[in-house]
Structure formats: C-alpha cells, structure tokens
C-alpha cells in the first residue's frame, strides 16, 4: 500500500507534464480491462503493458490487489477501496475522486492465475526504472522468472542507468535468462552462462542444462555450461546437507517443545500422563481465543496476539493441570499405572469437551507478520515461523532448567520427587509442590500448543498426533533427565529428516522407531540414564 502510494506520487511528478495526452491514450486500454472476462482482461493487460507507459502501473497494481472494479451503471473501470460500509471510487488514471458507491453498484474485475502471472511480468517490465531499489530488484526478479523477451529493451535501458550493484546483478541475471531462453550469438551465450554460474540455485541449473543439451549452442558454450553446472551442483549438494540439518533442527525443536512438558509430568513426577497431548491442544485453543479477541477488539495489534497468548496458554493449561492433579492424580502417587488409566480417561473427556465447545472442525490461528514468509541464507531457505519455534523451544528449555536448578521452587520439586517423607519432614508442603509441579508441566505443554498452532491443525485431535512422539523422546533421552530430552528430540528429528529423502516419509519414520527399539536394547535406561539405587525401584 505504502509502496503503491509512493510510486503513485513519483509517477505523478514524472508524468505531470505529458500526462494529459498519454492518459487519453491509455483510457480505452484501461477500459478494455473490464470487458470480456478473463480473456478480455488478459488482452487489455497485454496492450497496456505494451504501451510501456508508467502511468499504467497504479492501474495494474490495483488489478493485482483486487481493487479494480467496473461501475455497473456506466461500465466505467474504477479503483474502489472500502470506506466504511461503502466503497470510495477513484479514477485509475490520475487518481481523481469519483465519489462513493455501495457494494452492489460495482463489480470486481476477477483475476486468475494466468492473469496474476501476466501482471507480475508486466509490472516487472514497467517498474524496472522505479526510484526505489527494492522495487527495481523485485522487478528484475519478475523478469528473470517470466523470461519475457519483450522486456529486453527496458532491461537494457535500466541496466545502463543502474547504480546499485545487487540490483545490477539481478538485472544481468534476468538478461542472461532471456538470452538463454530466446537463443543468441555464441559470445552472448557464453557471457550469459558466466553470469548465471554466479547464481547457484535450481533456476540457474535448469537454464544452464538447457544450454548444455541444446543443439544450436557451440561446443565451447556447451563446455562452459557443463563446468558451470558442475560447480552449481556441488554447491547445491552442500547446501542440501545444510538444509537437511536445518529441517532436522526444526523438527527436533518441535519434538522438544511437545516433549518437554512431559519430561516434567512423566520424567520428574512419574505420572504416565496420557492427557499431555490435550494440554498442548488447550494451549493451541487458548491461542485461538486470544486471537479472536484481538480480531474483534484490536485488529491493529494482531501481530502481538502471540505474545499475549503465551502467558495466557501457560496459565490456562497450567490451571487445568493443577485442577487435574488436585482432583485425580494426587490419589494415585506411587501407582504409576493407574495414572495411565485415569489420564487416558481424562484425555478422552477433554477432547470431547473441546469438540463440544468449539466444534470438531479446525480453527484458524493466524501467523503474525513477523512469523510469516521466509528468507534466504546463502542456499538455505529458512521460514520465519520455524526459526522462531527453534528459538522458542531453546528458550523454554533454558528457562525450565533454570527454574529447576536455581530456584527454591525447583529445589522443592527435586526434593519431593527424590525423597518425599524426608522433604515433608523438612517442612516442605509436598501436596502443594506436587500440584505446582504438575501445573508447571502442563503449562509448558500449553506453551508448546501456542507454537504448534502456527504449523499444525488446531483441532480436538491436535494432541493425539504428538503424544506418542513425546513419550518416545522422553524415554529415548532417559526418564527424569532434561538434557536427555533435549538431545533425544534433536537426534530423532535430525535422523528423521536425513532418512526422509532416501526412504520416504513413511519408511523413514518406521526406521526411526526401529532405531529406538534397538537403541533401548543397548541402553535399557535411555541415553542419559540415572544411576544409583533409586533407579531399580
């Protein structure tokens, strides 16, 4: 939006002197966008971008954003933007206000995929001279993608004036892509191959391969392409390994988040907590509720909703956990198996409760803008959402570690779980510590729910998908050892991701399970076994 306005302003200034005559020429072309359905719009768009007039840019941008409408009364094409309950109409050429109209009086010019592609290509060609380097760069990328030979002249003109080196490189690559696609002299081909060799990605590889296998290219060009392909492939392979490591880390941190609450309730307290997954689910639903509140009352602050959801989910899940502990679990200490039975029953009831309250279908949890999209790091694609989840998982782990090792509360927890009567004798109120510990584990599960709501379904079945993996992680790492849970989660995640490309997703998972079974044969107490007499009990 802001970008559009700025560009609009620039266009106005540049075109101020000549605009009257040009706008008159564009008018019938703009008008033709509104007739003849998708095909008509596409034809109009083609003519509009052929005219090469920057004044057309705001029109095309409005079309892309879905703001271009036809006024039903007279068939005039207008830009309409929501203003209160009505729409404010403006002239697409020049931006003069045309008053307001109700929704029923105007009809949107529909856009499909083919049109979207055409829009990107023509905007690319038309915005190569934009004063904003960022826009010029994305314009060059758009041309690279479309490989539209008609943009070549505009590209050359833009290159002649370009000062910014990174934009320059993007433009040269775009030109190289056009050259290779359209076919060119031997000299040009070789220059293009050299340019593209610097861009070590799949797109470059595809273009280079087309040279290497083409019949028209000379032997020297082919040889240059072949050596470029070899170097690109090597880089891609190395980046591929790094990418897999990242995926492994990311999957591992999801497993860590899911399992870390269980490491407290099961690992530390010995409760076989089958309702752990439901605590995660409750956290996810809390996120949904918080977001609903934001949507209703403060849509402008939506990006902060996740930050508010974190403490809310911790408190809600933790509260439910304390309730469960006080009403059910506390009668069952020392009888781990019965906790399995009771928590299984609770998990069924909680799922059904959520289903009755929120309905069985998925709920929409939106991603704040700082968790959407991805960035490139060398040859790595890292999505912001996953990055934050990795950071968050480690932060939660560290916080829990500090809480258990460095606070009085943590000390009491360790005392009670290690020797209950002794702790009691020392004046620790064990019942209270039990309740708070279970609440802590459940609250952490709730935090995991906030994170998982960003990547998975928010449905009553959410928890079921993670409960088995969580138990595997805790047991693999060694019950009662937080470091074990950390290492276990990361090992299993990475292993899974390295197996997946070779064995496929299903077989990969089966192999990981077999690995766990065999590993437990070697180390019957998990990776980080607790030692000492208490273990045998």
């Amino acid at each position: 939006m802001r970008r559009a306005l700025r560009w609009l302003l620039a266009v106005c200034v540049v075109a101020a002197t000549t605009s009257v005559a040009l706008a008159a020429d564009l008018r019938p072309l703009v008008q033709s966008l509104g007739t003849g359905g998708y095909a008509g719009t596409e034809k109009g768009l083609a003519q509009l971008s052929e005219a090469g007039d920057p004044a057309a840019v705001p029109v095309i941008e409005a079309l892309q954003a879905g703001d271009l409408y036809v006024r039903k009364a007279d068939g005039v094409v207008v830009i309409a933007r929501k203003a209160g309950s009505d729409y404010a109409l403006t002239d697409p050429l020049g931006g003069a206000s045309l008053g307001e109209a109700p929704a029923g009086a105007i009809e949107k010019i529909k856009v499909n995929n083919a049109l979207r592609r055409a829009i990107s290509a023509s905007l690319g060609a038309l915005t190569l001279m934009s004063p904003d380097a960022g826009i010029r760069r994305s314009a060059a990328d758009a041309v690279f993608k479309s490989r539209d030979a008609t943009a070549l002249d505009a590209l050359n003109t833009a290159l002649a004036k370009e000062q910014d080196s990174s934009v320059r490189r993007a433009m040269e690559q775009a030109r190289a892509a056009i050259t290779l696609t359209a076919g060119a002299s031997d000299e040009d081909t070789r220059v293009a191959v050299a340019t593209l060799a610097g861009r070590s990605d799949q797109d470059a590889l595809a273009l280079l391969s087309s040279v290497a296998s083409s019949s028209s290219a000379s032997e020297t060009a082919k040889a240059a392409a072949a050596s470029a392909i070899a170097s690109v492939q090597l880089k891609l392979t190395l980046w591929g390994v790094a990418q897999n490591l990242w995926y492994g880390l990311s999957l591992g941190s999801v497993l860590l988040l899911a399992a870390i609450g269980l490491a407290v309730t099961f690992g530390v307290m010995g409760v076989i907590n089958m309702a752990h997954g439901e605590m995660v689910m409750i956290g996810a639903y809390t996120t949904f509720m918080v977001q609903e509140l934001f949507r209703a009352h403060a849509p402008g602050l939506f990006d902060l909703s996740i930050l508010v959801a974190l403490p809310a989910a911790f408190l809600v899940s933790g509260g439910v956990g304390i309730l469960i502990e006080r009403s059910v679990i506390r009668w069952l200490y020392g009888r781990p198996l019965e906790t399995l039975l009771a928590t299984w029953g609770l998990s069924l009831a909680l799922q059904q409760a959520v289903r009755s309250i929120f309905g069985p279908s998925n709920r929409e949890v939106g991603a704040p803008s700082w968790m959407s999209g991805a960035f490139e790091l060398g040859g790595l694609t890292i999505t912001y959402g996953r990055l934050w989840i990795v950071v968050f998982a480690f932060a939660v782990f560290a916080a829990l570690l500090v809480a258990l090792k460095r606070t009085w509360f943590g000390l009491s927890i360790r005392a009670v779980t290690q020797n209950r009567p002794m702790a009691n004798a020392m004046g620790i109120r064990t019942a209270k510590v039990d309740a708070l510990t279970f609440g802590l584990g459940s609250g952490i599960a709730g935090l995991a729910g906030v994170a998982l709501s960003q990547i998975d379904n928010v449905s009553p079945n959410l928890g079921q998908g993670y409960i088995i993996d969580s138990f595997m992680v805790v047991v693999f790492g060694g019950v009662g050892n937080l470091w074990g849970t950390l290492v276990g989660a990361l090992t299993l995640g990475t292993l899974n991701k390295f197996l997946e490309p070779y064995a496929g997703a299903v077989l990969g998972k089966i192999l990981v399970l077999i690995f766990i079974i065999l590993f437990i044969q070697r180390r019957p107490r998990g990776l980080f076994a607790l030692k000492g007499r208490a273990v045998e009990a």
Partner: protein
Amino acid sequence: MLTRFFLMGLDRKAGVVLTILALLAVLVPVSTLLVPADSPFHLSIFTVSLLGKYLCFALLALALDLVWGYCGILSLGHAAFFALGGYAMGMHLMRQIGPRGVYGNPVLPDFMVFLNWTELPWYWLGFDHFWFAALMVLAVPGALAFAFGWFAFRSRVTGVYLSIITQAMTFALLLAFFRNDMGFGGNNGLTDFKEILGADIQAPGTRVGLFVATVVALALSYMIASGIIGSKLGKVLVAVRDTESRVRFLGYNTEHYKLFAWTLSACMAGVAGALYVPQVGIINPSEFAPASSIEAVIWVAVGGRGTLAGAILGAVLVNFGKSYFTGALPELWLFALGGLFVAVTLFLPKGLLGLGAQLMARMPKSKSLPNGKPADQKGM
C-alpha cells in the same frame, strides 16, 4: 499329566467362568437358531456377532493379563499381536474369495488388481490352505514376540522403557501396514470376505459357529492360563513380577520365564485376532494403533489386574459400554467412557472384581494377600 496341569489351577472362580462360557456355548446357538424370531428369548445374529466380538477382546485381555497381571510386563503393544493374527486369518479369507472378486481374478485380491500387481507376492503363498493360515495365526505373532522378547528381556529392558518400546513396535507396524506397497491392502485392509471353511461367512449358522469357536478358544486359553498360574512356573512368574532381581539372585533365569509367558500370550492374542476378523468382517491397520493397545490395558485394569476373570469381565463390560453409548449418547459417549476410567481408578483400584473383595475385607478381620493379586508396589 496334562489333565492334572489343567485341573490344578482350577478353583471355584474358574469353575464359574467355565460354566458361564459353557452356558453361552449352548444357550446362544439355541436361542439364535431354534427359538422363533418373535420370542423374547430370541437372540439376533447382530447380537451374536457383537457377543463374539466382545469375547475376542476378552481373549486379548486375558492374554495381556497373563503377562501384565502375573509377570509384571506392561505391554502397550499387544494389539499388534492381535492384528497380526487377524491379518493371517484375513489373508486366508481373501484367498477364499477366489474369482468372486469384482474383477473376477482367481488369484489376486481386488486391491492388488486395481493397483496393477501382476502376481501374488511370496508372503501370500500358502494362505489358501486353512491349516497353513491357522499355523501362521500362532506362528507370526509368536515369532515376533519371541524375537522381540529375546532381545528386550536379555538386555533387561524393564518397566516403562519396555512399555514404550512395545508401543514403538506397534506404531512401526501400523505405519508399515498402512503402506500400500506392503501388499496388505493399505488403509482399506482386507474385507468383503465370502466364506470360511466352505461355509458362507454371513449365514447365521456360520456366525453361531464362529461364536462357539470363540467361546471354546476363550475357555481353553483360560484353562491354560490358570493352569500355568497354579503351577510352579506361575509362582516364579509372580515372583518375577514382584521383585525380579531377587528371583534372579535365587538362581532362576528370569529371562526364560518371561520369554515363555510373553510368547504364549502373543499367540493367544493372535488367536483372538483370527477369530475377530471373520466376525467383524474387516481387518485394517488401525488395529495396530497405539490407542488400541492402551485400550486393552484399560479393559484389564477396569476388570481387575491379576485376576483372569477380571480381564474377561473388563473387556466385555467396557466394549459393551462402548457399543451402547455410541448408539445411545452419540455426542457424549466419550465423557461417559472417560468418566468411567477415572472413576474406576479412583474408587476401584483393584478393578471391578476387587470391589467385592474390598467390601468383604472391611467386615471380617482376617486379611491375607492371595498369591494371585499383585502387591501394592512401585513397579509396573
């Protein structure tokens, strides 16, 4: 010798269980096939199949109780043995369809035909013979249990670690059987059976026959299990459950005892699965789901762990409740079922069979710890 073995473990409770089973084996066929349909004593075929299903689950629960209640091995993967037995039977029934499948292919099951398999995979060979399938019903779960137990018990994997790797085992099998490339029909599983041992599988006579077979299998397994428990072997098993290391120090090779009980239990579960499949008409990988195994544990706990009759009672009761509530309270039945589990744990720690004992124990003073009951202990 054998008769002594069987009779040794039989006490009065066993007498009652066997009497009830015998009554079922006689009364059900009579009231289904002979009593006219409008009489209040008539049992519909639907009910017979339902009862048959419950008893298959009861057999699974009995098998599980043998290892968990008496040997202290909490298996969260017993449904895997059940399902493997079921698949062995299902493969036989698939082969029996012959050219009556929708494509009319005399050898290949329908799901192979439309996924363009050209010949039967080697592991399907032999299943056209009933004796071979029957052997596999015992051999496949037995072999898996033996191999799994051999490694796990020798490595002294115990307690929750053992439980979780049994869970990993059934989960891995679930994923494997879901794969269509495995040649077991993927998610659709095996279904649309036509006949068993030459009899139409949907005919009332066949269904009653299958029911009676289930009752007989359950009774036999009950006798075997109580025979073992009453024997010296049983005493060692109970000792292993209560303190394994002490038994080991006394010179017993506990691994062998555990392995025996474990493998036998898996075979029983396999038989249960094999009887289950023709009665419900489908076998599908979801039987391997970890939740199914956990449910089986819950049946045992509801009925009373460490009492064979309790396992049977729990399985029948919980499944009856499930059938009833899913029809009567379709929207709320999970609350009812979940509430039942919580209530049983809180108020009936020894299960339903323990309830009577608990009430009795309050009145007279004398209280002894019978050898069949697990002591209140930390282990699982």
